[in-house]
């Protein structure tokens, strides 16, 4: 009997995916581990719309008038803040999770358009440093590969406390992706399932974090901007405390943020949506008097389009980060790999097994044969194209709202299509002046 027989009724509670997962769990006895990010429907930037200019507002000419996109990051304490040409950066993804060619491609793409890339849970590679004009070095609980020389050759340091796909959880890299080089960089045996620590080994709270940040500044001569990255949960308080601890830049990763490998229950059930997080972080910075004048905010988790970029900035972000979208731009989930995806039991648009190491696109793998398939020059250029489009789209929307810089976008330019989005983003429901919970 066909699964799409018109007389068959699928349970919304026990749908096919749910039934399959119960069957898999019963068979294997271990939780499902996968990559990608949350797949469930969540309130997101799609639930917001811009109020373009009309009689009461004055738009800018869409193709000619200047609309600035540059952003300064780390102006609070660092003697060498970062100046990026566009407010779209590449989020932290490890060498290990990604192939060396993928990391190189990310660096090439971001550098081509004047943006930054970020290392991940595995240390800094020479390829990455060499091809990234601006490189942010993550300081993670595992401290894999951490060393003072790389700290000093980074352009900024990101103290990672959590990530949106798994706030409260540590990194994960399964044994099949541990090559000789990955194992050596992480000082661990080959072929083991690496479960990175979920908390830092030498500090436990915000008071300690303040001292830790001071140590990092002492080691790097107070040159580097210090970011603090949190997975979005208690975002208002986390932002407050990170600022108190001395952060120059706050990075908030919403629950739609992707991952190389994590338990699915974590991905789908922990954290709050990016839409809610950006507003909470902004409120904290505003209350401290530091929003757009001292501490910068980077938001990530489900950024896909220039509209997402513009909406995140309108809600208070200074810049955004992309991870999943960047991998797709490099060549992940593309249609010409359909046959190979089919052999893995999946299809273009559905591939999520980034943890497995057999990525036919050569991106989320350490298999040399597969990794060679990714041309870092071409893939880097695809990423640069994509970043240009995000920027052009965001500028288009900003000009329509009469803004000469993306940072001039503001919540007043937005309204919400759903009650949930109105409440989370604290903008009025479209066509009304009603913000649930406020007025």
């Amino acid at each position, binding site marked *: 009997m066909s699964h799409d027989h018109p007389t068959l009724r699928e349970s919304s509670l026990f749908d096919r995916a749910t039934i399959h997962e119960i069957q898999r769990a019963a068979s294997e006895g*271990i939780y499902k581990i996968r990559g990608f990010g949350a797949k469930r429907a969540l309130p997101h930037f799609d639930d917001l719309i811009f109020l373009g200019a009309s009689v009461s507002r004055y738009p800018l000419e869409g193709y000619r008038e200047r609309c600035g996109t540059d952003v300064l990051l780390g102006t609070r304490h660092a003697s060498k803040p970062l100046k990026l040409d566009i407010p779209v950066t590449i989020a932290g993804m490890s060498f290990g999770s990604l192939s060396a060619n993928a990391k190189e491609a990310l660096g090439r793409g971001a550098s081509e358009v004047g943006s930054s890339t970020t290392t991940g849970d595995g240390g800094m590679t020479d390829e990455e440093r060499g091809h990234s004009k601006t490189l942010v070095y993550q300081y993670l609980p595992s*401290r894999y590969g951490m060393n*003072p020389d790389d*700290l000093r050759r980074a352009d900024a340091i990101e103290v990672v406390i959590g990530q949106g796909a798994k706030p409260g959880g540590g990194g994960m890299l399964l044994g099949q992706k541990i090559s000789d080089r990955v194992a050596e960089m992480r000082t661990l045996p080959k072929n083991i*399932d690496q479960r990175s*620590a979920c908390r830092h080994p*030498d500090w436990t709270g915000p008071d300690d974090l303040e001292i830790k940040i001071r140590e990092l500044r002492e080691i790097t*001569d107070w040159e580097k901007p210090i970011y603090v990255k949190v997975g979005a949960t208690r975002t208002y308080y986390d932002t407050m405390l990170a600022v108190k601890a001395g952060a120059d830049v706050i990075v908030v990763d919403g629950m739609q943020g992707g991952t190389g490998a994590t338990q699915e229950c974590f991905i789908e059930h922990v954290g709050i949506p990016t839409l809610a997080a950006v507003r909470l972080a902004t409120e904290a910075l505003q209350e401290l008097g530091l929003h757009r004048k001292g501490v910068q905010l980077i938001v990530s988790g489900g950024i896909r389009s220039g509209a997402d970029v513009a909406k995140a900035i309108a809600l208070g972000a200074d810049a955004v980060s992309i991870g999943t979208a960047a991998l797709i731009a490099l060549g992940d989930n593309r249609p010409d790999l359909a046959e190979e995806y089919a052999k893995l039991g999946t299809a273009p648009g559905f591939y999520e097994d980034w943890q497995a190491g057999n990525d036919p696109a050569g991106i989320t793998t350490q298999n040399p044969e597969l990794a060679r398939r990714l041309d870092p020059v071409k893939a880097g250029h695809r990423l640069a194209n994509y970043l240009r489009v995000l920027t052009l789209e965001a500028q288009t929307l900003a000009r329509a709202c009469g803004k000469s810089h993306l940072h001039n976008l503001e919540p007043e330019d937005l309204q919400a299509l759903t009650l949930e989005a109105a409440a989370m983003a604290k903008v009025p429901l479209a066509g009304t002046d009603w913000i649930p919970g406020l007025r």
Partner: protein
Amino acid sequence: MEKLDLAELGLRAVNRRLQGREGAEETAFEVTGLKGEHAVAAGLMSPISVTLKGHVGYYCAGMNKQAEIVIEGNAGVGLAENMMSGTVRVKGDASQSAGATAHGGLLVIDGNASARCGISMKGVDIVVKGSVGHNSAFMAQAGRLVICGDADDGLGDSIYEARIYLKGEARGLGADCVEKEMRAEHLEELAGLLAAAGSDADPKDFRRYGSARQLYNFKVDNVDAY
């Protein structure tokens, strides 16, 4: 020997001097006026010798490379964290997370160390002449931790390939940490570590602990341990 008064010069100036950022040719330093200051002698990167005359706060000698640092007092949290090489010796006690994630070099603690000594160590050698607190060598990846006294609960929890030598008693071993045979090569290795630390303890009085390697890969049979 150049003398630096931290209370007078401030941390920034003292660390810059020790890091060689002022073009110093001096190779021996004595620092006074410490008063428990944090991040003292952090990020040193040349084979100089530094004597710290007093107690220090968090992250003293953090990420040390090549320098030989002696602390004539007690040390706060994260002593010699992520050390790459060189030697750090504290003549008093050390607080928690001493030698955390350190990749190389030798850390000697003449007194006791608090919890999580050697947490996530990645190749450093640590010799504690006294006892260590709970969860020492937690997730320890590589290197050797020598404990001449006792160890509190959770010793070597989730340990990888680091080796632990313990003279006294462990209140309890952490997940996947087991006692292992003390073979001749281990006695020889331990003798070298004790000698380097200036300890006259007899290697034959120690037991060796390490990973049972049962948690290296996800297995449903280990579900209780996850």
